[in-house]
């Protein structure tokens, strides 16, 4: 595992999305700066949050002072010198301060969270838009799970930044700063003692959170392995049963599980050690304040009220200081998650509209490939398609055959511009497809893919995917042509039946027929079947072909298939080998040629039982 993955990472620009790879320091700082700038898109709320924070801190700090004064006033009255009205006034001020603190905290938290949610909202849209627009070559090389993590987990890290990192920093700085000034100016020694736990707790809490974060990432990986073991076991339960492999599977489970459990125990230890040490430091400081302050009270240097102020202040400060680690963690998290997230939304879109590109104008409906070559990114320039030229006119059907890996699918993917050619050009009615609006190319060229992705929604919505504003009768029409209609009518909810990942599961043939229907819906000028009838039986396929006879007269049809019966009626057949066209002509011409096509034909047409008897007859 290690070898392959490190090797891949070394020369893969998208490695940043892998959770295990680290984010550079500069990238991290850049991300922090950028999130901070983004927050200022909402200047009113940011200002409100900061002002409310200051106000909350001030009212918060006033409470110990008022309390201390009330204690002193009480004592003064008891000793016959005080003023009862002043005590009542103190009580009222205390109440007012408490209410004000609550309200300011409300404003602070709510505005801070709303800034975070606003950022998340903006970023969600950016991420979604970018993912939809990034080209096939990006998606080929990026693990879908990694993108999902960026869009869900990393987004949370960025969202939390404003409230947990930034606002908390302001809060803590003010609270500790003003509080320290207040205490130290009252009594230097007692102030130092009261604050003595702060540096220790802050340090301990930060170390703890950073350690927890690091182990959390490892734990997530371990848990991912564990859930993969379980998931694969359940999905492949028939294999497990077939091999009576329950013991083998339990051993796999135990290995993964023990590992994860050990790690989570060690995390508990880290947390427990730190929190109990912090508590001890806090109570220790409190004991010192009581002891030293007590002597000072007894010596008449300070009042009991002042001592109470000190002690109350300590309790107020305790929680935020202990949570300082969360703040440090929020910075660490925002820097890595932000770096990953921005890397995604800044990823250049390789296949996009040229500036001011016009719409594709379909006139004669002629497709022309001129000396087209193509190599995949990261293939080291090894051509998957090389020097292919052909022309097709409206109404024509072109068949494409060749061994697996000969470049058939790749060639088909160049026509709707899923990938850009590396040399040569593709034109539709004389317009280079790279010079016109991408969207108009995709409308003109539609592909029935090998593995069709169905969306988890109704059959109706799936068929209308490419033309959602269509009329209902057209849905029925294409469904009929694709030989799907009768099947759909047999379903309890008919066209309202939900299919896809979480819906009714369809057989391979049904999926392909649905995929054909939704492609027909688009009424493209160029219709491509990319080995998309493999799971459909020969009879049904020929009925689909018959139903499409009229439809095909209006457009170009390209058919890639293994079964020669699917394409031998084509006007022209191209035989691909290693990315080049090695034979072309009609079925009859190619048979007469007696080359590779003929060999393939013989292989398929011979009674199958005999194939094995003549070893290595072909290719």
């Amino acid at each position: 595992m290690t070898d392959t993955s490190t090797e891949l990472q070394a020369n893969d620009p998208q490695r940043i999305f892998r959770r295990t790879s680290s984010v550079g320091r500069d990238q991290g700082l850049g991300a922090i700066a950028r999130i901070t700038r983004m927050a200022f898109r909402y200047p009113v709320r940011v200002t409100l949050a900061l002002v409310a924070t200051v106000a909350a801190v001030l009212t918060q700090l006033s409470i110990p002072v008022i309390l201390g004064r009330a204690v002193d006033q009480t004592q003064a009255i008891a000793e016959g010198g005080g003023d009862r009205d002043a005590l009542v006034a103190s009580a009222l001020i205390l109440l007012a301060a408490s209410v004000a603190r609550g309200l300011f905290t409300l404003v602070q938290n709510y505005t801070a969270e709303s800034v975070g949610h606003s950022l998340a909202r903006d970023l969600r849209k950016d991420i979604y838009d970018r993912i939809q627009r990034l080209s096939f070559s990006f998606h080929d090389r990026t693990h879908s799970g990694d993108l999902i993590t960026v869009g869900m987990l990393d987004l949370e890290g960025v969202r939390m930044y404003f409230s947990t990192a930034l606002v908390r920093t302001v809060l803590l700085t003010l609270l500790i700063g003003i509080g320290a000034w207040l205490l130290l100016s009252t009594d230097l020694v007692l102030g130092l003692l009261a604050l003595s736990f702060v540096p220790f707790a802050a340090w301990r809490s930060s170390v703890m959170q950073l350690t927890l974060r690091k182990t959390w990432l490892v734990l997530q990986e371990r848990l991912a392995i564990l859930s993969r073991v379980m998931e694969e076991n359940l999905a492949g339960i028939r294999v497990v049963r077939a091999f009576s492999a329950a013991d083998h599977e339990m051993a796999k489970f135990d290995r993964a599980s023990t590992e994860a459990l050990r790690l989570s125990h060690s995390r508990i230890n880290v947390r427990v050690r730190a929190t109990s040490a912090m508590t001890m430091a806090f109570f220790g400081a409190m004991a010192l304040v009581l002891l030293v302050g007590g002597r000072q009270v007894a010596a008449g240097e300070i009042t009991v009220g002042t001592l109470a102020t000190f002690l109350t202040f300590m309790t107020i400060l305790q929680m935020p200081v202990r949570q300082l680690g969360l703040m440090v963690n929020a910075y660490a998290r925002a820097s890595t998650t932000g770096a990953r997230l921005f890397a995604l939304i800044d990823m250049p879109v390789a296949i996009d509209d040229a500036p001011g590109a016009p719409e594709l104008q379909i006139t004669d409906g002629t497709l022309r490939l001129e000396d087209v070559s193509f190599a995949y990114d990261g293939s080291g320039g090894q051509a998957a398609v090389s020097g292919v030229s052909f022309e097709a006119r409206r109404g024509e059907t072109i068949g494409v055959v060749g061994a697996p890996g000969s470049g058939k699918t790749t060639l088909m993917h160049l026509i709707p511009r899923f990938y850009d050619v590396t040399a040569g050009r593709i034109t539709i009615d004389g317009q280079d497809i790279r010079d016109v609006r991408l969207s108009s190319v995709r409308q003109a060229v539609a592909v029935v893919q090998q593995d069709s992705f169905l969306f988890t929604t109704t059959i109706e919505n799936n068929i209308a995917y490419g033309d959602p504003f269509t009329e209902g009768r057209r849905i029925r029409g294409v469904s009929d042509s694709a030989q799907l209609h009768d099947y759909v009518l047999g379903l309890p909810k008919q066209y309202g039946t939900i299919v896809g990942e979480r819906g009714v599961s369809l057989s391979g043939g049904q999926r392909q027929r649905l995929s054909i229907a939704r492609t027909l819906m688009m009424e493209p000028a160029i219709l491509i079947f990319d080995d998309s009838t493999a799971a459909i039986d020969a009879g049904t396929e020929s009925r689909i072909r018959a139903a499409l006879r009229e439809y095909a007269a209006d457009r170009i049809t390209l058919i890639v298939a293994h079964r020669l019966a699917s394409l031998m009626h084509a006007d022209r057949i191209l035989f691909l080998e290693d990315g080049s066209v090695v034979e072309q002509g009609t079925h009859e011409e190619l048979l007469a040629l007696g080359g590779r096509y003929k060999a393939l034909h013989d292989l398929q047409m011979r009674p199958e039982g005999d194939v094995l008897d003549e070893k290595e007859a072909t290719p």
Partner: protein
Amino acid sequence: MNPAQHGEPRDPHDDGRPRMRAVVGSHRIEEEIFGRAFDGKVVRRIWEFVRPYRRQVVISVAAVLTFTATQLSIPLLIRYAIDHGMEPGGVQNNVLTVVAILFAVVIAINYVASRTQEAVTGRMAENVLFDIRRRMFAHLQRVSLSFMDKTEVGRLMSRLQGDVNSMQEFLETSVLSVGDIMLLVGIVGVMLWLDWQLALLVLMVIPILLVVRILWLARARAAFMAAHEANSVTNGALAEAIHGVRAVQAMDRAALNARLYDELVEDNFNAHLRASRLAQIMVPIVDSLTGIAMAVVVVAGGLMVVSGRIEVGVMVAFLFYIQRFFDPIRSLTMQYSVMQRAMASGHRLTEVLDVEVAVQDAPDAVALGEDDDGSVEFRNVTFGYDPEHPVLKNVSFRVGSGETVALIGPTGSGKSSSMALIHRFYDVDDGAVMVGGRDVRAVTQESLGRHIAMVLQEPYLFTGSVMDNIRYSSHWATDDDVVEAARAVGAHEFISALPHGYETILDERGGNLSLGQRQLLSFARALVVDARILVLDEATANIDSYTEMQIQRALRTLLEGRTGLVIAHRLATIRNADRIVVLQQGQLIEEGDHEALMDAGGLYSRLYTMNYASFDDLPDEITEAERAIAT
């Protein structure tokens, strides 16, 4: 969201006006999140898992109580120091020293108790979580396959993860809430003890808080759920965009989808703001109540101090306690939701644990050994997943040792079920399945697994190296055995061409291999077992002719010297079999070799002459017609 999603049965052309048929993401069918707060049955089941750790439970509860006690005692120490150690004028060293020593003792106890409490509780909860998960996983290895077929993997995974996690949360917080209750009771108790009248005055805020909190909780929970829901809908739409990106681009839906997604994002945003508002509204309420309580202590307590009824230290202690007693109330009300969630989860967990184990070794089961031959026999077998509707009716046939039999018939004829019965995935309702001359119910499942190798229709591979995948559970096989098996089925060549040969890690489900290659690997995996009997369900999908040829060749190697039972779809396979068994609607209707069946002119000959590549994906009208002929 969109009515079309849960629409009534209808035909799409029954509406005149055009409307948009587009959604992004889909509404998740959420399960019940909250159950009753307490369900005795669930608690009893969960207790089974906690029982092994009861010593730890006792320790952690004791530690929690100790910890609470130390927390309670600190304001008392402060009060004692203020009232007895700080009389103005005379420095009373003794009292302050005593307080200092007591303080040190309390801190030490607190330290030990808090460490013990957190560590023991945390570990115990983790252990229970892992134990429950292990038991469930082990149980799922033994439950009936039809249960597994009916249940989505995602559902089971959410039992094994989400539900188990919420049990862990519950266990952890249960111990802590014992602490919370004790803290609350302790604070109230100590305050009453210090001065009951002042205490009662102060405690008047508690009922107010409780009422507010209960009124709040119902609304807040609805808002939190709505936010959670909106989040999962939005995330679902994102996941769909990622998985379906090629289809989206191919059908030029990116622009429209972005608009639809924006709506979801806005809904999500608003739901979160609502939840946030509701969460924050409690802050000023609690703060105001704290303010009221403190003001009461200042005025009423102050007057009591003046009148000499209490000492000033008591007043200070009250102020300290007030600042603490809202926390336990807050966490206790939260705990209520945790409990409800845990009960709902616990209920689902016990449902999984209670699924019946379908097939078990008989107490006197013997192991199938080398001496037992490779014959398979069905003796008047009747079987159905639902006894009302048998899928096999009184089927009998015999496959001699070393013979290859092709099993054919249209979808639903009972082929796959027959295969499952040979390996005793299920028990027959009537009759018997014999392997090696013994009833499968009389032999151990483990030995049956070694006696029969199976190749399933879908070549399922696991994440891991090619080597591990071919060896799978055949631990006895050496690396050389694996390579030899790969060679025999003709997979060695492409494996060697992989970047790391046999050590190449396969992606999820072998995604980096072609279908044909995956099939060859699954052949090799079956070959490594080196079993007497091979049961094979041939793949139906069309693959290219070259790979097809390789697979046919591999199949021959695989069947050499073994008993073969093949659910066949390809004419080549069928014609190479020694005998053909034709099933239809659970009944054996024809049996014999190719020539004999052709001569008989039954279903087989009709299907054969129609020249369908596969007997499985027959057009409906043909099966209908056949059914009509048969009846």
